[in-house]
């Protein structure tokens, strides 16, 4: 029953890049699809990190964030904070 307004941008950090040939974009899309009830996840995916480390950023509900956080391949899930120039 979550609305679009309930979604916040979270970073899903998956650690280092996996060994071997992987399409990380697909992997990230699939992980997201697993926790989102129905519908396309294309609009929910904000960014994929796949050149130097592994992770993605997506618009998630609290419930989806909790589900992702329990996955064994996830190091951490946290909201995207805004830092400041100093």
């Amino acid at each position, binding site marked *: 029953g979550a609305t679009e307004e309930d979604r916040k*941008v979270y970073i899903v950090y998956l650690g280092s890049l996996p060994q071997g040939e992987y399409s990380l974009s697909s992997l990230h899309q699939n992980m997201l699809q697993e926790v989102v009830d129905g519908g396309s996840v294309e609009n929910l995916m904000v960014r994929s*990190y796949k050149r130097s*480390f592994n992770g993605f950023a997506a618009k998630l509900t609290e419930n989806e964030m909790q589900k992702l956080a329990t996955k064994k*391949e996830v190091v951490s899930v946290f909201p995207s904070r805004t830092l*400041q*120039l100093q």
Partner: protein
Amino acid sequence: TTNSWDFIGLKESVKRNPSVESDVIVGVLDSGIWPESESFSDEGFGPAPKKWKGVCKGGRNFTCNKKLIGARFYSLNELEETARDTNGHGTHTASTAAGIDAKDANFFGLGKGTARGAVPSSRIAVYKVCSEFGCSGVDILAGFDDAIADGVDLLSLSLGGDPTDFSQDPVSIGSFHAMAKGILTLNAAGNSGPDPGTTGSVAPWLMSVAATTTDRLFVDRIVLGNEKDVMGFSINGFSLNGEKFPLVVGNDVPGDCAQSDSLKCSGSCLNSSAVEGKIVLCELSEGTIAARQAGAVGSIILKDTVSGPVSFVVSWPSSSVTSKDYHRIISYINSTKNPQAEILKTESIKDSDAPVVAFFSSRGPNTILPEILKPDISAPGVNILAAYSPIASLTREDKRHAKFNIISGTSMACPHVAGVVAYVKTFHPTWSPSAIKSAIMTTARPMNDSITSQAEFAYGSGFVDPTNALNPGLVYETFEEDYIRMLCSIGYSSEKLRRLTGNNNTCLEASKKASPKDLNYPSMTSEVSAGTPFTINFHRTVTNVGLPNSTYEVHVFSNSGVRINTVPKVLSFKSLNEKKSFDVTVTSNGVAANTILSASVVWSDGKHRVRSPIALIAKE
């Protein structure tokens, strides 16, 4: 910058390695860059280094050159479609670290000289991760992801926030992967000082930088009607041409508003007809704007006395004075029927107290990992003149534009150390990030913190000394596996660490029982219990990078009443890269809560001095 590199000791005539320097790529994650600034001209530069794998994707009307070899922009909100710097901050930091010489640089005639970076022959790659709304974690991680893969040699991040657990902090995460690829990340300690525990730059694999003053102090004198001088602080390029104007106190000429507000000259609480053509004395900084709007010719503002000699750019004749001088002026006004004053144009004078840690510079202890001393190092971050974006406002209130600006912050200190890292790298291209960091920390000049008495928790290992850092003698090296052991010791699971590193790292029982204070760090710190005797042990290993055959003796300095013992007291080396370990034990009969115990261990072979500070804080 036109002065700070000379003050640090990196003079124009310093020895350089230009061919290697031109292969060094400085990555800057910031608010973008102004590519047309003369600090980024590519005259005389050859093609980009072969190792460069990045691109120039700065958006519309953005062109790179052989100096500025890469640009990318990110925007979580898709509002920014250019790497062009509309803020000025990114241009300032990039030019401080790596700008070429820009002759006759000045800010409305102030601070005139040749603005230069530490490594003028190096290349710059810019990752715009900050917009007018700040720097989102999503964009910061994207900047790291690209910069590491693009092949930068070091990263400078003049941004930050509150202290956060490593696994949830984009700067800690990004800099960890940078370190694993041999890239050292420099990070501003933060501007939340002088309260303790305020630094948000906490990870041991990055280098956090505190801000200090330089020997160039900008002062803005006020001459009273009795011809007595009052020393003020502001960056004010205006002259009243030798004319004195009537002086009034803001709360004596209230406007149509509550009396309590008028005491501070806030908002519209000044009577325009009573202040027109006069200089207004105000208690709050907003008074500068209120007095100007009300038609005054100038303002004198009360400034917090603990804030020290930090001057701010003002867009009309205005100066700030300490509480003592503010009351001197009030006494003068009360002593005469016709009080008058003139605000002179800002001038620079020599500050023999420098370097002093800036009041705003965030302090340790490290609230995430108290066993790692933060900040790591200090560098100039007060009143730094460097290139600026010509379309950016000088300040929020001052809408003027300039090619150079004078600004303050740990943001300004960070690229100074980034420049030094690049400089050291030109002489030691194969050194690990931790070796370079150690070289800079152990050769730093000792400092005092007479303003807040927070010692190493204010300035870290001391004031950066680039030429000394080239020859440290010994270095404390730390590699990915050492950080993994440290993360085990603070409770990270084997599974989490396997994900983090991609290796089959498991937390051995020994690692779980270890203490993070035994990470091979160039400084030593710990919390101790107040009021009870304690014994703290630090284990360290040094690598010989000085002379093959050398013998180092230990010297211990302490004014804290603690006993410090080092075993062994002599380290003999037979070859380069040979490693030797030692233990430092600190004992005390107990100290009062919140006491900071400050000491240092120095290894010396007669030619090198390898100094590690020890900072202990007593907690309830």
